[in-house]
C-alpha cells in the first residue's frame, strides 16, 4: 500500500477510501495482537471518516492524501480519542481538541486509524518503556522496532498503514525508521507545529513522517508543515515544496562523511554508510571526510536538557485535573501517590535527573553547562555546513536489537541515539533512509543531515540512495 497510489486511486474514484481503510483494518486485525502496534483503535470512526473522504472526493475536492490510512503516535492529541503518550498516568484521558498535524492530515483526506504505541512520554529507544507493553518489530518479532515512535514505525513496516506520524526528540523517528527499514524525517525545529503534541522536551521535540519511500514521506511532510499561529515557535513561513524537488539529484552536492556519526557503530553499519557515500559520489556528489568533535558532547548535553524540560513538562500530571488519580490524605500525598503509580521507571529517572539539573546550586554546573554545549554544537554544525551541504552518517549503531537486550542498562539504551541527538540540539533537519541490510537480513538506515530548512535537499539525496537500492 503506497500512499501516493492510494491517494491517486481514491482521488480518481477507482477505489474508495472505505475499501482502503477496511483493508488496513484487516491487516491490523491480523497482526496487532502479536506486534502490539496500536494501543487504541477506532475502526468505526476510521470507516466513517473514510466515507466522508469518499463524499468529499465525489463532491470534486482534490485531496493530496485522499483515503490514505495513517497511524498516529499516541502522543498526538486526537479529539475524543484516548491519548496516553504510552503512560498509565494518562489512562482514559481523551483530549478535547486535535493536534494541528492531525487536523491538517484530515483536511488533506488522510484517515487516522488509531494510536500507535510508544515509549512512555517518548522516553526510550525501543518502545519497551510503554505502560501498554512493548511493540515488536514486524520484520523480526523477537526484536524491538526502535523507539520511541516504535508503534508508528511498526505500523508502516507491517503494512497496516502506508504512512505514520512520530515525534523525534533525540532520534525517535529516525532510529525506529532505521530499525524497521523505513524513511523517517526529523524536520527542522519549527517546520511542523507542535500544537497538540504531548511535550517531552519542548525545545527538541519535532513531529515528522514515516513511510516506505522518500516520495511518500515528502508528501506527508508537505501536508503537515507550515506556520501555525497556535505554536509561536513554528517557523513564520508556509510549507516548503518538497515533492517537486525529489529528482533534483545530488550533482555538485558537497557531502561530508562525518567521522563522529559512524564511530562506534557496528562494522556492517559503517560499511553501509561508506557504500552510501560511494553511491552519492556516483550520482555526482563530492565526498569529503569531516570531523565535528563537538558532536561527541551531544549525548551528555541532551541527557541534561531533555530531562530538565521534561521534569517541568510532566509536572502537570498531578492527579488534580485529568488522567490517573491515586487518592491520599491530602493534596501533596495524592500528587505523590499518583505520580508514583502513574509513571514508569524511565520517566521517573529522567524527571529526577532533570529536577536535579535545574536545582539551585546545580543549575550552572549541569543545565547551564549543557546549554553552553548546545551553543557550541550549533556553531560546530554551522562551521561544517560552510564546507559541505549535507552530512552523512549512520542513524543507529546497529540493526534492530533483541527485546530486553538493553532494558537493564539505561546507558546502553541511551547510546542508541548517539548519532541522532546532535540534530535535535541544533534544531536542524535530518532523515534516515534504508540502505542495505546487516545481520539476519535486517535493514540498516543511513542518516542524512543538513542545516535548517534543508529538507528538500535531504529528500533528494535520500531518493538517490533509494534508487540505488532499486526502490
Amino acid at each position, binding site marked *: 500500500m503506497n500512499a501516493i497510489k492510494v491517494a491517486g486511486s481514491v482521488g480518481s474514484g477507482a477505489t474508495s477510501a472505505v475499501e482502503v481503510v477496511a483493508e488496513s483494518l484487516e491487516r491490523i486485525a491480523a497482526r496487532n495482537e502479536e506486534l502490539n502496534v496500536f494501543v487504541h483503535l477506532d475502526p468505526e470512526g476510521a470507516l466513517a471518516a473514510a466515507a466522508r473522504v469518499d463524499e468529499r472526493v465525489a463532491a470534486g475536492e482534490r485531496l493530496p492524501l485522499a483515503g490514505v490510512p495513517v497511524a498516529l503516535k499516541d*502522543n*498526538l*492529541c486526537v479529539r475524543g480519542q484516548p*491519548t496516553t*503518550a504510552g503512560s498509565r498516568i*494518562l489512562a482514559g*484521558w481523551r*483530549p*478535547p*481538541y486535535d*493536534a494541528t498535524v492531525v487536523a491538517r492530515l484530515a483536511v488533506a483526506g488522510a484517515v487516522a486509524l488509531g494510536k500507535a504505541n510508544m515509549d512512555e512520554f517518548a522516553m526510550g529507544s525501543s518502545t519497551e518503556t510503554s505502560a501498554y507493553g512493548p511493540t515488536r518489530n514486524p520484520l523480526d518479532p523477537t526484536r524491538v522496532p526502535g523507539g520511541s515512535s516504535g508503534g508508528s514505525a511498526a505500523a508502516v513496516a507491517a503494512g497496516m498503514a502506508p504512512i505514520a506520524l512520530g515525534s523525534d526528540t533525540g532520534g525517535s523517528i529516525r532510529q525506529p525508521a532505521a530499525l524497521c527499514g523505513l524513511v523517517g524525517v526529523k524536520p527542522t525545529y519549527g517546520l511542523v507545529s*507542535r*500544537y*497538540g*503534541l*504531548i*511535550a517531552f*522536551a*519542548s*525545545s527538541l521535540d519535532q513531529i515528522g513522517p514515516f513511510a516506505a519511500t522518500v516520495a511518500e514521506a515528502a508528501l506527508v511532510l508537505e501536508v503537515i508543515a507550515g506556520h501555525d*499561529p*497556535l*505554536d*509561536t*515557535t513554528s517557523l513564520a513561513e508556509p510549507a516548503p515544496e518538497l515533492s517537486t524537488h525529489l529528482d533534483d539529484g545530488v550533482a555538485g552536492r558537497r557531502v561530508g562523511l562525518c567521522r563522529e556519526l559512524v564511530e562506534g557503530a557496528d562494522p556492517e553499519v559503517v560499511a553501509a554508510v561508506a557504500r552510501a557515500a560511494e553511491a552519492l559520489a556516483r550520482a555526482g556528489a563530492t565526498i569529503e571526510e569531516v570531523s565535528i568533535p563537538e558532536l561527541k558532547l551531544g549525548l551528555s548535553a541532551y541527557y541534561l536538557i531533555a530531562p*530538565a*524540560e521534561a*521534569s*517541568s513538562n510532566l*509536572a*502537570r500530571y*498531578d492527579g*488534580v*485535573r*485529568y488522567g490517573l488519580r491515586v487518592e491520599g490524605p*491530602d*493534596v*501533596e500525598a495524592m*500528587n505523590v501517590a499518583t505520580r508514583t503509580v502513574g509513571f514508569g521507571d524511565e520517566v521517573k529517572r529522567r524527571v529526577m535527573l532533570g*529536577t536535579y539539573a*535545574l*536545582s*539551585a546550586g546545580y*543549575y550552572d554546573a549541569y*543545565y547551564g553547562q549543557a546549554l553552553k554545549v548546545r551553543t557550541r554544537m550549533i556553531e560546530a554544525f554551522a562551521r561544517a555546513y560552510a564546507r559541505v551541504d549535507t552530512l552523512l552518517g549512520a542513524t543507529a549503531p546497529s540493526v534492530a536489537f533483541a527485546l530486553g537486550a538493553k532494558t537493564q542498562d539505561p546507558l546502553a539504551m541511551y547510546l542508541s541515539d548517539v548519532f541522532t541527538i546532535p540534530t535535535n540540539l541544533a534544531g536542524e533537519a535530518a532523515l534516515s533512509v534504508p540502505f542495505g541490510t546487516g545481520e539476519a537480513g535486517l535493514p540498516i538506515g543511513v542518516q542524512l543531515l543538513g542545516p535548517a530548512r534543508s529538507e528538500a535537499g535531504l529528500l533528494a539525496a535520500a531518493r538517490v540512495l533509494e534508487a540505488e537500492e532499486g526502490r
Partner: protein
Amino acid sequence: MSLPEGWEMVVGLEVHTELLTRTKLFCGCANAFGAEPNTQTCPVCLGLPGSLPVLNRRAVELAMAIGLALHATVSPSTFHRKNYFYPDMPKDFQISQYDRPINAGGYLDLPDGSRVGVERAHLEEDTGKSTHLGGTGRIHGAERSLVDYNRSGVPLVEIVSAPDIRSAAQARAYAAELRGILIASGASDGRMEEGSMRIDANVSVHRVGEPFGTRCEMKNLNSLRSLQRAIDYEAERQYALVASGGVVRQETRHWDEDRGVTSTMRSKEEADDYRYFQEPDLVDLAPEAAWVETVRAGLGPMPAERRARLAALLEDPTEAQLDAVGTVVDLGVDGFVEAAVAAGVEADRAIARAANELAGEAHERPGLSEQSFAATLRLEQSGDLSATQAKTVLSTLALAGGDPATVARELGFERMASGELEGLLERLVGEHPDEWRRYDEGDDKLAQFFTGQVMRATRGQADGKAVLEVLRARRGR
C-alpha cells in the same frame, strides 16, 4: 506608631496587577471577573497535554505602558518557567519573567515629594483560584478543595519596588499612587477588592546607619488599610523581637485582618526551589522601538500631573480642596471638572461636585456627559437650582440622560420667585403655631420641622439654606 529614635523600618512592595485585556495572556479565553467557575477555560489555560501558549500582544502593550509610566526602560525580554506544585496552577509551573524582565529601572514620585525606586515590572500569568472547605480554610487540613481556573492565565504585571520605603504611611501612599498610575495608563482597574491589584510587603527593621535587618514578607493585604496596619504591626513585632535579644527569621507571614496580627505561613527553609529556566514554548520578546514609542505617545497624563493641573485652577487651595482634587483624579473625572470650568463654573464648585457626585464607575452614569455636568453646575451657580436640586438633577441625568434645564423643569425645580418663600413660611407658621412658638423660644430642632414642611410644599424646590435664613430672620419678631 513609630519605632524608637534611631530605628527605622525598611519596606519594599511587590504589587501584582491584572491587566485590562479582553483575553488571557496566552490564549483566547475571556479575561473577566465573576463568571461561573471554569467557564472561561480552554486547553491552553487548563494546561492540557499538548497545548502551547501564544503571547497576547495587548498584554505586552499594557505592560510597556506601566513600565513607561514608571519611567522604566523597556528592554528585550524572555519568559521563564517558575516550577512548583499547586493545584490551582494547571501546568504546575507559572510562566513568568526572570532575569530579563520587560521593564526595569524606574521610579515613582509620591505626593509628599519622596521618590521610590521601581526595580522591575514584569509580565506573568495568574493562577486559578482555590477554595478550601473545612479545616482552617487553608490548603492544609482542608477536607476538600475546589479550583476555579477562570483566572488561570489572566495577564499580570508584577511591579517590584526598591526597598526605599521607610514608613507604613509611605507604603500606603506608594500603593495609592501606583494604583492611580495603573488606572491612568489604562492597564488595570486597580480594584483591590476583586483582587485585580494585590500587594505583598517586605518588611525589616534596623538601626539607622547599620545594614538592613532580615525581612519578612507579608501576604493577604487586601486593602490599603490592611497594608498600612500590617506593616506597622510587623515592624513593631520585629523591633520587639530584636530589642528583647531575639532574631528575625526570614519567612512569609499571613496578615489576619480581623485580629490585626501577622503569623508564620512558611519559613525560608521550607521555601520552594523554583528551578527557573527559560520557557521553550515561547520566543524572545523584543518590542521594536517604534512600537514602544507608540505606546509611550498613547499614555495620557499621570495622576501627579493631573492633580497639579486641577490644583492650579484654585487660588491658594485649602487642605480639604486638595483632598477633593485627589479624589477627582482618583475617580478619573478630571475631564468633568475641566469642562465645567471651561463653561464658566467656579473651579471650587466644579471640583467639589465632581469629587462628591461622580463616585462610582463611569458605566454607572451613562447619561451624564461632561457637557451636561457643566450645564447643571452653571444652573446652580446662577441660582436657578439650589445645591440640593443640582445634586438631584445630576443623579437623574446619570441614569436617564437629557438636558439639565429640561430635567430640572420636569422635576419641578422652578426658581422660586422673590418673596415666595416668605409667603409660604407665613402660611406654615399659621398652620403650626405650637411648633413655631417652641422654635421661637429657642428650640433649634424645630428648624428641621419647618424645613421639611417647606420642602414638602415645594416638592424639594426650595434651597435648604435659604429656608434657614428666612426662619432665623422671622425669629423674635
